[in-house]
């Protein structure tokens, strides 16, 4: 089992990350992944660019905690989480989550769980440059709801 957490300003390539995670392990049958992308609109306003701030140290720790929780709940072979920081523009990739497992149900559930908890627990903050000026993005109630449904 391998867990990789990276916070970086550089872009990433999902094919390379999946190849690294698979490392010719023939027990992997399923790989679920998620990419978050910067959209050109948010809350009805056009977004020119955004800056991602984070809490160094706590970020890596909190994401590793999230992955550990996922591994306690599902059969996870490997997990990769990459989150970008700094200035990003529409169409840029923000976040990548990849989970491998023997079976697809575990891979899908763990991947979505990690994303939902990353959205509500990992210390990242977005500041958008919009047509109306700069603004910090507000936390979304929908994200809290998405994380909470795993408690049921």
């Amino acid at each position, binding site marked *: 089992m391998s867990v990789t957490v990276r916070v970086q300003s550089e872009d990433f390539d999902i094919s390379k990350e999946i190849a690294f995670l698979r490392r010719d392990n023939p027990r992997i049958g399923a790989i679920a992944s998620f990419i978050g992308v910067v959209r050109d609109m948010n809350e009805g306003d056009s977004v020119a660019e955004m800056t991602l701030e984070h809490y160094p140290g706590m970020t890596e720790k909190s994401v590793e905690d999230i992955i550990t929780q996922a591994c306690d709940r599902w059969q996870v072979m490997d997990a990769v989480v990459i*989150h970008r920081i700094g200035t990003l523009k529409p169409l840029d990739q923000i976040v990548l989550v990849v989970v491998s497992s023997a079976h697809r149900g575990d891979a899908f559930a763990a991947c979505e769980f990690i994303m939902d908890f990353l959205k509500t*627990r990992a210390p990242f903050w977005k500041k958008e440059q919009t047509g109306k000026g700069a603004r910090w993005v507000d936390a979304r109630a929908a994200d809290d709801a998405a994380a909470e449904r795993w408690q049921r």
Partner: protein
Amino acid sequence: MANTITVLYFARLRETFGMASENMALPYDVASLEGVRATLAARGGVWAHELAAGRAFRAAVNQDIASADTAVKAGDEVAFFPPVTGG
């Protein structure tokens, strides 16, 4: 340093307070996150406003999400920040 904590501020709070971090003397009667919050809020102005008990801020002690009753002792790293919006 023996009697201080490091306090970090992020995102909107960092901008509003005009600082990213400070070393704060830990008052002798403060042993919890709630005590740290109240000490900072007692500065008045934006501090009182942003760290009012009912405001939607979050906090961490030594890089773990913390609640009002989380213990705080000299040497700890305490952070205040808005609800997270990454991903």
